[in-house]
């Protein structure tokens, strides 16, 4: 079986936060305690959406030591493939769902003397759990959180209220910007910087920190990659001896699963490396979108990450 272990949960609260973001609370169906986890972990939520099974990863935002419930926040993506819309439109209090055990691909580096968090929009969620975790041990942290407007600033008020000296909020519509270079220059030795948000923000923080000669080990990031829709394409699976059609709104991984192929995965977001697949033959172009393979591997045409990457062309034969 692919993916992490599963947990049967019941939705016990659905809380709209603002025009875009809704929070969901999950408790174990059998009333047992949920596993503790480490800040930065995500869970993969299974959605039975008509005939389609959607599996979307969401960062756990609740206190990792609170075993009574997990919470996640879902931002509605009207242009996306429907996972977030399903959560917003279909999921109701009392529903039973299946989620995965926590998996952490964005954990704190516990050697850090100080943790500097930089969040953009819904990228705030993993930091909420990390802040809970650090607060248990009087950890040294500081948050810089940029959001579109006060109305859309999920958790901005709560954070400013509970941690006024550690929280800095920036509103785009008020032309407030994180003074990143200055901020990085002023950090004590042994600080680690963590960034979660849109791709542009991650690239900006990474390149600025590198330019400031921060060691690569001290820069951490997690990007929320959702598979993007694209032109349908055909692939041949050499081991299972099947030719399958990948539809416009499904990923290659989802298409294989739909056809009963038990392909490995964990994050479903191009980050963990678990789904890495060998390309046996191809004629055409890859649309690589993952963060796992490096540029050379992308160019080589030897590997693909089916959770987020696609293909355009005549033939694609995979080792599955």
């Amino acid at each position, binding site marked *: 079986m692919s993916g*992490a272990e599963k947990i049967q949960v019941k939705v016990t609260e659905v809380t709209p936060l603002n025009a875009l973001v809704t929070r969901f609370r999950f408790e174990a169906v059998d009333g047992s305690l949920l596993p*503790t986890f*480490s800040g930065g*972990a995500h869970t993969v939520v299974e959605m039975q959406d008509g005939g389609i099974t959607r599996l979307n990863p969401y960062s756990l935002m609740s206190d*990792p030591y609170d075993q009574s419930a997990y919470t996640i926040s879902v931002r509605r993506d009207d242009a996306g493939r429907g996972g977030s819309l399903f959560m917003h439109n279909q999921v109701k209090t009392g529903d039973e769902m299946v989620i995965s055990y926590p998996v952490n691909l964005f*954990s704190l*580096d516990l050697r850090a003397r100080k943790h500097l968090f930089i969040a953009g929009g819904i990228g705030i969620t993993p930091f909420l759990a990390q802040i809970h975790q650090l607060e248990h041990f009087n950890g040294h942290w500081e948050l810089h959180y940029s959001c579109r407007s006060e109305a859309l600033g999920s958790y901005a008020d709560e954070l400013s209220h509970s941690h006024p000296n550690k929280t800095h909020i920036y509103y785009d519509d008020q032309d407030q910007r994180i003074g990143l270079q200055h901020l990085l220059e002023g950090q004590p030795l042994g600080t680690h910087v963590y960034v979660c948000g849109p791709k542009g923000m991650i690239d900006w923080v990474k390149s600025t920190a590198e330019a400031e000669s921060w060691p*690569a080990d001290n820069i951490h990031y997690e990007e929320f990659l959702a598979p993007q829709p694209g032109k349908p394409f055909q692939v041949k699976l050499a081991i299972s001896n099947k030719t399958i059609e990948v539809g416009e709104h499904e990923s290659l991984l989802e298409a294989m699963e739909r056809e009963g192929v038990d392909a490995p995965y964990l994050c479903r977001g191009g980050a963990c490396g*678990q789904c890495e697949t060998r390309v046996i033959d191809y004629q055409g172009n890859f649309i690589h979108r993952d963060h796992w393979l490096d540029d050379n591997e992308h160019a080589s045409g030897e590997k693909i990450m089916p959770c987020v990457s696609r293909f355009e062309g005549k033939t694609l034969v995979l080792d599955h």
Partner: protein
Amino acid sequence: MTIQFNDESFRGDYTFRNSDWAIQRFPFPFHEDSYMYSVNMEQHRGGPKGSVYEQRFDVDEHYVSEMKDRALVLDQDPLRCQSLPHMTLAGWDLLELIMVSKSEDYPDLFELNRDGNRWRWVNKPLRIDHTFTFLDETTLPYGPMEYITRQAQGDFAILDQRDDMLWMDAGMVTTQADWSLDFDIGMNFFEWHAPVPKAHEMGIFVRALKFLLNIQQGAPARRLNWTMTVNPLLDTSPENYHKWGIQKTELTPENIGRKQHLRVELQTFFRLPRSNALVFPIRCYLCAFEDLMTVPKWGRRLHRVIRDLPDELATYKGFIDNRPLMLDYLSKFDDGLPTSLGIWPDRETEPPLQK
């Protein structure tokens, strides 16, 4: 079942013995008549009743004496237990994992009562009854990892996971098969595996690392490894080679059955939830050749495996010089009959020795 704990030594007069129960459940590591180095991982989710696979942390008749031996080693060499400062949370993770597992798996021996962070831990075999505050080090006599691993058989390496790499950043290592925590502490996965022969060529370690990095909460894994030890000596550390290395020269045709032990490591791997570190318990089981020979299938098979093992592996495992002596002894227990697949003794179905 209630376990009768042995009072025995793993040094000096070597009074260590396996009961018939312990022999029957010995994790014989060869599932066929030959051996090839491989990663051979499987899920660690129980196993046949009474086997060493059944529980998350196996407790057997050697528990109390092994813990005494550990205390002796630590007295002489406190560096056998080390934890880099950032690994304290992982130590609490391990303490929680072991206490919860043992109290659930052996309720007659261990009890854990939790009231928020106020925990009461009762370890009947070691006569410990301790109330402490979870996550507060000042309420324990040692750091959390040291505290709990003074009460758990086997060595423990705790590996921090950073940047798709594992780092040996904490451990309790007193029963090791010739490796040194003090030497390996702070090293990454490739650095601490450096002496294994041929493995890099096989790409085995790259795959093993990938496998370990992906071990997730709730899905522990396990494998067996093995070597040979003369005398039931737990502490075969490089630090003490000058003391135990010499014992390898003391084997004779008369004493080999009693003195030569097959040493098997049950290695398990658990993702630790709070720290996201990985713990790697390495549990050592020893069995004298003469005890192994009471199981006809194991007698036949051990002879064939040792006979056909490539020289470099026999050298790596440290018994190339004694191999002729071993084969003389073992060949008496091999009548050439076929053996059943798998590691289990199959006493009911395998024929007795035909010579």
